């Protein structure tokens, strides 16, 4: 029903269309058509008013231009009827637009009562992590944490439950093809509902739909990108989530560690010896560090594991106690193997 919404297209007038247009990427979610419909409606109104205002201005500019033999005339300085008309008529039009816009907005923010699949979203400087759980498709009690890639199944209702660690900053998740956006606020769980209606390949986005961060979040704000993949079948989806989310798929432990580092650790720890929020990893493995408490500790598997799971317990002297704890559920061991191997590879 919704995808039938259209103003039709006049030759030369670029309007939003379901299949993508001069203005927008292809409509690929349940809420896109309503948003585009409202856009077209307002676009038409703007064109009419703009042409009227500028047309009249240009006509007067030519007709009443100062020239020899032409003199201004004194005309009435106000006309209550005319002025009321050009105040009240636009107001009525705008209230109608407001009504239509609000109708579609309510569609946008009101999730269906049942059959809504939740995906947790964690935004961090400067990365997205999507947490998938699905007892039927992924296995009982299993969860997969996937960086950057949002995997969805076509025509399924989704609700993203989004947050940011308290120590992080504001972010905002934006998927242009879906016409949806919602801020990720530390200390809050903001929700975003939609239903994908096209697979990424159907919409011509073979590398996935773009997903952007649209709330300025510091240095690498413009690198905080993701991709959205919409799959036709449950099997394709489960395979893709497993492929992206099962860290054991990266067999080489150093590579695995590097990929974990890029996703979770890079914004605060350097690997080239340069200073950052936390200690550099270069030469850290096996090094003796002095803690805030004064005790000395050797950086080994035990200390690294503890510092990831409970970072506040032992903080290296001279650094702030500001790290977020990380936890990967039943994949913890596989993650730590990678981290140990990567840190060891950075020994002096």
């Amino acid at each position, binding site marked *: 029903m919704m995808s039938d919404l259209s103003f039709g297209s006049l030759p030369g007038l670029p309007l939003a269309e379901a299949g993508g247009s001069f203005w927008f990427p292809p409509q690929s979610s349940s809420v896109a058509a309503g948003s585009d419909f409202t*856009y077209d409606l307002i676009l038409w109104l703007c064109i009419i008013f703009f042409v009227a205002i*500028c047309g009249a201005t240009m006509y007067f500019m030519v007709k009443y231009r100062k020239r020899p033999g032409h003199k*201004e005339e004194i005309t009435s300085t106000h006309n209550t009827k005319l002025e009321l008309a*050009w*105040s009240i008529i636009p107001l009525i039009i705008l209230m109608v637009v407001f009504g239509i816009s609000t109708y579609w907005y309510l569609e946008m923010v009101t999730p269906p009562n049942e059959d809504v699949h939740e995906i947790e979203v964690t935004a961090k400087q400067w990365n997205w992590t999507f947490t998938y759980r699905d007892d039927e498709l992924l296995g009982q009690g299993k969860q997969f944490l996937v960086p950057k890639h949002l995997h969805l199944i076509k025509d399924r209702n989704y609700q993203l439950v989004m947050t940011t660690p308290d120590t992080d900053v504001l972010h905002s998740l934006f998927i*242009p093809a879906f016409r949806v956006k919602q801020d990720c606020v*530390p200390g*809050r769980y903001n929700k975003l509902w939609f239903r994908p209606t096209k697979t990424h390949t159907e919409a011509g986005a073979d590398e996935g739909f773009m997903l952007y961060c649209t709330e300025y979040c510091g240095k690498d704000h413009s690198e905080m990108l993701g991709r959205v993949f919409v799959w036709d079948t449950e099997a394709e989806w489960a395979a893709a989530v497993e492929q992206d989310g099962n860290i054991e798929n990266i067999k080489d432990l150093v590579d695995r560690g590097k990929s974990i580092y890029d996703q979770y650790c890079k914004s605060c720890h350097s690997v080239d010896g340069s200073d950052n929020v936390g200690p550099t990893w270069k030469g850290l493995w096996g090094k003796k560090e002095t803690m805030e408490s004064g005790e000395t500790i050797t950086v080994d598997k035990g200390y690294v594991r503890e510092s990831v799971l409970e970072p506040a317990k032992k903080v290296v002297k001279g650094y702030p106690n500001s790290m977020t704890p990380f936890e990967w559920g039943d994949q913890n061991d596989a993650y730590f193997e990678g981290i140990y191997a990567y840190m060891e590879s950075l020994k002096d």
Partner: protein
Amino acid sequence: MAGGIVEKPSSGVPVRPARNYLNETKGLKNWLVTLDHKRIALMYLAAVTVALLLGGFWAIVLRTELLGPQDVILSNDWYNRAFTLHGAVMVFLFIIPGIPASLGNFMLPMQLGAKDLALPRVNLLSWYLYVIGLVFFLGVLFLGGLDTGWTLYPPLSSGRPVELNLIFAYTAVFILGFSSILTGVNFIATMHKLRPKGMTMYKMPLFLWALYATSLIQVLATPVVGITLGMSLIEHVFKIGIFLPQYGGDPVLYQHFFWFYSHPAVYIMVLPAMGVQSELIATFSRKHVFGYKAIAWSSIAIAAIGFIVWGHHMFVSGQSPAAGIIFSFLTFWVAIPSAIKTFNWVATLYKGAIDFKAPMIYALAFIYLFGIGGLTGLFLASIANNVHLHDTYFVIAHFHMVMVGSVLTAFLGGIHFWWPKMTGKMYNETLARICAVMVFVGFNVTFMPQFVAGTRGMPRRYANYMDEFTVFHQVSTIGAYILGLAVVIQAIYLVHSLFKGKQAPPNPWGSASLEWQSSSPPDFHNFLDKPIVMGAYDFENWEFVSEDAGYVLKKEVIETGKSLSTVH
């Protein structure tokens, strides 16, 4: 001699008055302690011009960086600093004080027929506060810039380890706030207390109504941002939980406080511009402005409604849908007084004699640019579209159409319009017209492509971007260069005119508001004799003499001391 004109030229070359406010006293010290609103206005003009050039410099730098999708001249860090400094300097140091503190300061007493503002010492204090704020911003620059965005949202700003440049930025905005409040108080007091006999509120030029509405906002809204940034400063240094979630604060609360000021601040910027616009349109079409009362009261309406729409900056922040819908509803209402003004300006042109002098080219460009800026606001007021367009280049294009397309255009138009009065010199009209057209063209080339980039999903504040947006950015950058070049040429010919310009007549444009009854430049006391109080748009009282001598008051007006106009 009645009419207050010192040297009334009946024909031929106008004579510069031997004594005027510029040569009344000499020496830097006399300028720095002056209480004369005209001198303070010029000092403001100099200071905001410095800010405009500084903010413009960063605009050119960041547009250059955006010539390509990856790093062109700046790292991500420096790009972020460039757009932060561009935004902060332009907003706090140029657009907010720009028109009111320079042109308003000069013209408010003169258009009323008064000797000065009600509180001359407060006026000087407000200039000094502005300069201190400017110095703090320069301090931020010397300390290596700031990368928080001009909105200074926590936790990104106050949540970071203590940084001197951030402390400087908070302090600067705090101090500038006081400068703004003092100007507002002064303007309101002046308009209530110093109107001479016969100068009723409805006789005031619409520029003054606009300044009145602006002043109301300055006085009522600015304290909120001052307090908010004061709290942020304390929070930043002592790490207490007001806005920082890790200490139990709420970052969205900051956004409410910030936009409670900063949305009305948009009207602090644009209302004076609309005031200038009304003067230019009427003068250069030689028509009484159409719908005077509607324009006057629509300024007040914009100021009033402007206070209750701030939540539209937070449609996707997680505020409740009910709040979002109410803010959307209220936002649509702002369109009406803005539309009323626009219709009235167009109607004023009807049956006029439109003279395409440089200020008028700006005024006509204003109708077009404000038309686009205002109408594209409807997409953003519509909450179903706002979700998609929020924080994209569509928003950038929209607010630049209003804040630059309208405010900068009106500022430049106003500068050209009042330049002969303020300096007593005429600038090069041909160059001025060329530059006016360049500003218009450059502006459109810069921002029109950004609307399309925005609807297609280009997020704002991105140092690097996807390849598909390259062409929009490149066209936009070319536009920015044209715009930048025009501003530089203007600065050159305006300064040149101070030394080599022709002597300006008292009233080169035939404008009817009272300042044109004074000499160019005005006497230290503004008027040597009492000006003849008349309606601000009673153009029939003035007759054209010659290009050099401009317009003079008709004999019967001088003899009777009354306006010939019958249209009140």
